[in-house]
């Protein structure tokens, strides 16, 4: 399922001339449960990635908002907190690494919307997703806590991008609300409730699918849709698709290349009329 994100993100980026080079020997960003248990160590993991990226003299682009937030936090703290910087530097030094604070952390969505821009994206569209009603779902991490990328509560970036490829972003007030995240493991009751709110809101606004930018949100929406239906007696059938899959579809890549059909809540009905042309 997340392979689809990986593949579609690479395909779309290549087409848009975004030069993505995988980081040598990268490691986990420190998000997941780590940061709430050993914050400093989590930041150290992030700092290691930043240090490797700095050698390449490139921006560090990630597709996962959790990585984005953790890396950005580490970057901010390193710039602002001298004591923290000293601790991290000492630790990096033991691995013969150093970091001078020169890396910009970016999310791929931000790069596509702000750097590549409307004209370039539109010029690549072969099959407009005209009339496809999409709930743009940002999740809770892309804009928080810094709000540097977009408005913290009601971001618009993904809405904009969806309209460039012809789709119709629906009003989605819960666009930056929590999907339940890792609570799905520890407090399923709470997480299912949050998930249900999202699906309910998308359905009420007439969405045929949900566009995601976060693998965790994506997984929760897809994998637990059946559990939500069982638990709340609902009958949701709303597929989740990565924004790069929808872009790839509009750019004319095949469903196989994009990993469409691999999802657990089938997107067949929603995408029927566009799939024929694409495959």
């Amino acid at each position, binding site marked *: 399922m997340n392979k689809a994100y990986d593949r579609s993100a690479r395909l779309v980026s290549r087409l848009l001339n975004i030069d993505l080079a995988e980081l040598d020997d990268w490691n986990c960003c420190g998000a997941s449960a780590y940061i709430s248990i050993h914050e400093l160590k989590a930041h150290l993991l992030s700092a290691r990635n930043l240090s490797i990226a700095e050698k390449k003299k490139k921006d560090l682009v990630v597709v996962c908002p959790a990585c984005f937030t953790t890396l950005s936090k580490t970057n901010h703290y390193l710039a602002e907190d001298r004591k923290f910087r000293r601790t991290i530097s000492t630790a990096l030094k033991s691995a013969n690494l150093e970091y001078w604070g020169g890396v910009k952390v970016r999310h791929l969505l931000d790069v596509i919307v702000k750097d590549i821009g409307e004209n370039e994206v539109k010029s690549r569209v072969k099959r407009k997703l005209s009339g496809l009603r999409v709930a743009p779902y940002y999740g809770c991490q892309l804009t928080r806590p810094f709000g540097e990328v977009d*408005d913290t*509560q*009601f971001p618009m970036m993904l809405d904009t991008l969806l309209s460039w490829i012809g789709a119709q972003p629906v009003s989605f*007030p*819960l666009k930056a609300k929590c999907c339940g995240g890792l609570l799905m493991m520890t407090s399923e009751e709470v997480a299912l409730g949050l998930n249900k*709110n999202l699906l*309910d*809101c998308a359905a009420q606004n007439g969405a045929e699918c949900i566009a995601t930018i976060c693998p965790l949100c994506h997984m929760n929406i897809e994998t637990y849709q059946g559990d939500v239906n069982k638990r709340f007696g609902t009958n949701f059938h709303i597929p989740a698709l990565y924004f790069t899959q929808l872009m790839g579809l509009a750019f004319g890549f095949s469903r196989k290349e994009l990993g469409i059909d691999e999802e657990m809540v089938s997107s067949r009905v929603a995408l029927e009329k566009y799939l024929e042309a694409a495959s």
Partner: protein
Amino acid sequence: MVEKIGVYICHCGTNIARTVDCKAVAGYALGLPNVVVARDYLYTCSDPGQEMIKNDIRESGLTRVVVASCSPLMHETTFRRAVADAGLNPFLFQMANIREQCSWISENRELATTRAKAIVGAAVMRVEFNEPLEVQKVPMNPNVLIVGGGIAGIEAALQIADSGKRVYLVEKEPTIGGYMARFDKTFPTLDCAACILTPKMVSVGQHPNIELLSYSDVTDFSGYVGNFTARIRRRPRYVDEEKCTGCGQCEQKCPLSVLSEFDCGLGKRKAIYRPFPQAVPSTPVIDREHCLFFTKGVCRVCEKFCPRGAINFEQKERFIDVQVGSAIIATGFDLFDASRVKEYGYGKFPNVITSLEFERLTHASGPTVGKIVLKNGRTPESVAVVHCVGSRDNNYNEYCSRVCCMYSLKIAHLVREKTDAKVYEFYIDMRAAGKGYEEFYKRLLREDVTFSRGRVAEITDVAQNSSENGKLIVVAEDTLLSIVKRIPVDMVILSVGLEARRDALQVAHIFRISRSKDGFFLEKHPKLAPVSTAGDGIFIAGSCQGPKDIPDSVAQGAAAAANVLSLIDRKEVELEPTIALIDEDSCSGCKICIGLCPYNAISFDEPSGHAVITGALCKGCGVCVAACPSGAIEQQNFTNRQLTAEVEAICA
């Protein structure tokens, strides 16, 4: 002649003595050249402390005095006066700051003592070169400029005018009255705002000593204390104030209605209008942007119906200059723009309104004649009042806006009084510090209002169950119960905070006032000079200095008036002699200093070909001194010799 210097090291109780060994510093000073007396003393600023200095001057024949104590802002005047009493020119005194610049910022006693010695040494070396200076006196113009006709400005104007002095009251809106004129009731006594305000407004309008310049603003303010010139822009009303009787015919006949700013866009007004019926002056203005004559060249109905021929479409903007000796700035505040807090949905949900909009709704002469209704005309069954919107929030303003808790309680009371609606107050802390305020809060606790402690997270229309359908849901943590609440209501009132005026920066430039980091005007001293500014003769009053309620604004208006009157009664003002002087022989006439002077104190004398400083305008900032490429300018009491001696002593 060899100078005889006396040095006094102040303990300032324990403020200095805790970290600085004052005895050791005094001992050190005694070893410095020309020092004949050096003492340490518990409180040098006290009467016995001053007596000690005076005695030494008389008995030991001191010719120079150094006091090492606090900042010159605190006690320079005190010691200058003491020195002068003993017959010495006050400028032969030098202050060394070993409190703010030494003891308060040091922890290590040894290092602090070394530092204090250096500071004292520098002052001793410098004072040798201090020269006697004479204080200049200039006459004080008794006229006063007041900018802003809200309650603070009105109070100040009346106080000053009643004492027989002339006041120019400048107001940028068509009427005076400010925000208070738009309120319904006032907390905590619930008396009607108009009932207590409009008599004062009428007094201003009729006062023989007040020249009311409404629909006007100050574009330039030059000069110095006692002798300012204010340039006032009078925007055209297109109605002759002399001829108009305020009969209101024109307003009735005008065919064009637009949204009323006074009513926050909830009601309508005509293209020729007075913001509200009791406006002062009662002369209407024509809104050029909408008036059919100005936009389409047709109509002129008002002109036809005016019984006095007061309509004049030819009126032009004009500028007048007035001479005043002092000014009070009372320009008030702007409300926080609630649409900035996106999660509260202001502008998106029609029934999320601001507190000021509520004031207009509940006002008897407002757009609904005092009825509290939803946008669809229904009466709400439940109302939420959200505190601290834009206040106490690091995303917007860090400070507390001071008035919102109390006006929110008033809102709750009015809703309970006029409707059967349930009322929820979402507050962080209830701040009811003021006479009768806590009692008012207690009263509301008995009026069946639900209080929920915790900041509101969001206001949404995304329902989670049938009881929330069609409602606005207020989501908030209740920090007393440690739960998250979702309260469905019909109407949400946002208690928006107070901010510095959006044009505060321009106003600050015109009057050369500083601003604090929140954008409000900066007072000279937060406790001891709350309505003074760094500029002599320029005072501030009311919410332009920081959020204030009506009682505090009135008190400040009166306080500023008292300051001004005391200044006027002195008949003349003293000017600091620490001004810059140009050595005509060295001045090359390059004019660099002229453009740099922030006070327009330097002009160019064509016949002689060099720059000239008007002493009364110079504030002694030193910019020209530093900029002069020929080194032709020197500032009195900050001469090169004085400063070099000081620096050399510290570096030695």
